[in-house]
């Protein structure tokens, strides 16, 4: 079949909400865009374990330790679902990991911020997972089948993450003055970076248009960000806390919250590798991978040995 015809069939499927599956013909650029987006999403889930892993041993009670551990384990699973989805497009796991470690692939910049207090675990669950959920709910309807199915699975698990985060902050907000201050401080530090998670404004987002046409994305960065602001601006009232934005206020005509200007310099700075923890995060990932190498080798050697034993018997 000629290329033009194949492209037509492909776009026809997209337009009619028919999912694209691994063995279907797809334009090279669609394959590449999906590989890039899914693998970077996977890297974010995996690197995202680091700021929280930092608090497992310091969580204030056994209950909180168990909850945090369960959440982080979920994130590892999310990484796995996404790596598997990307692998169906013809890239190997090793190649993706190599791209992450060499810095060629990015992960969400939010994880380059440090987790300074226990309240940060609450703020991450509520704001960071909250922002991720808004993006992921949209992606449940993305056009590539394995990605969409992975997202459905992930979304089912995410709501616990956001709820446990809010609960951490809620308990602090009912506590002593010091605890309340800690709660407010965490919100202050995580608010703006969370808004940046949705990426550059629509005017500056380079590959958005094609992604919308292919239904990889279904809502623009600004739309998703607005949805997030509207949700959090209401929820923060329940905590009796405030968001660190003097320009935040309800706009009766738009039926949305207006909010202040985002510091895009900071965003690009962190993307380029100059955030507070970029180097630590990447080094921790590389170390974990390298220090696990002997385990992977030993497991293969053991499997080989078992196989030979079966053959001999």
């Amino acid at each position, binding site marked *: 079949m000629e290329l033009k015809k194949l492209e037509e069939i492909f776009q026809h499927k997209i337009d009619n909400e028919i999912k694209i599956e691994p*063995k*279907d*013909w797809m334009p090279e650029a669609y394959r590449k865009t999906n590989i890039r987006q899914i693998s970077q999403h996977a890297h974010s889930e995996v690197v995202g374990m*680091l*700021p929280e892993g*930092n608090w497992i041993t310091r969580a204030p009670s056994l209950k909180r330790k168990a909850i945090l551990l*369960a959440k982080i*384990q*979920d994130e*590892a*699973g999310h990484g*796995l*679902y996404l790596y*598997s989805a990307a*692998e169906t497009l013809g890239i*190997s*796991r*090793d190649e993706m990991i190599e791209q992450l470690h060499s810095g060629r692939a990015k992960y969400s910049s939010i994880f380059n*911020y*440090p*987790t*300074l*207090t226990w309240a940060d675990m609450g703020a991450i669950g509520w704001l960071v997972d909250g922002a991720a959920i808004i993006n992921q709910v949209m992606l449940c309807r993305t056009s590539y089948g394995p990605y969409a*199915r*992975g997202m459905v*699975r992930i979304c089912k*698990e995410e709501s616990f993450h956001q709820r446990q985060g809010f609960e951490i902050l809620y308990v602090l907000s009912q506590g002593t003055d010091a605890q309340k201050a800690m709660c407010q401080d965490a919100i202050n*530090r995580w608010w*703006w*970076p969370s808004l940046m998670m949705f990426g550059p404004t629509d005017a500056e987002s380079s590959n958005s248009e094609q992604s919308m046409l292919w239904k990889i994305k279904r809502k623009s960065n600004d739309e998703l960000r607005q949805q997030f602001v509207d949700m959090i601006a209401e929820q923060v009232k329940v905590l009796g806390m405030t968001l*660190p934005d003097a320009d935040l206020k309800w706009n009766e005509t738009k039926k949305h919250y207006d909010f202040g200007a985002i*510091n895009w310099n*900071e965003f690009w*700075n*962190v993307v380029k590798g*100059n*955030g*507070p*923890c970029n*180097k*630590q*995060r990447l*080094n*921790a*990932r*590389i*170390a*974990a*991978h*390298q*220090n696990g*190498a002997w385990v*992977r*080798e030993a*497991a*293969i050697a*053991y*499997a080989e040995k*078992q*196989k030979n034993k079966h053959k001999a018997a």
Partner: protein
Amino acid sequence: MNNLIKKYFYGDYGEIEAGSNASNNNKNIAWPLWEVFIRSKQGLDHKHVGSLHAADEQMAIENARDVYTRRNEGVSIWVVESKYITASNPEEAGELYEPAVNKIYRHPTFYKLPDEVDYM
């Protein structure tokens, strides 16, 4: 907001845990890929849920339990190495399913029956 671009160590990973002195022994040993099927409860079929890498079948089952059944999603797990799965070719879907498409008399709605027995 500007003061966030700053190097913190307190309350976070130190240089050692961050792998500053990790050895460089990065040999790539790839574990094979497995497809995972889960029976969500007795009486239902196993259904494909995803895939994972594992060194052998035992590890594949254990990993599948850890990632795909963390919330009681299953009572039974099947794993099969992906390379043993043969799939039909989507480009030949037309010819492959054509015989079924043609035989509308295989469907109960093909038969017009009197009202009195139409519940049949």
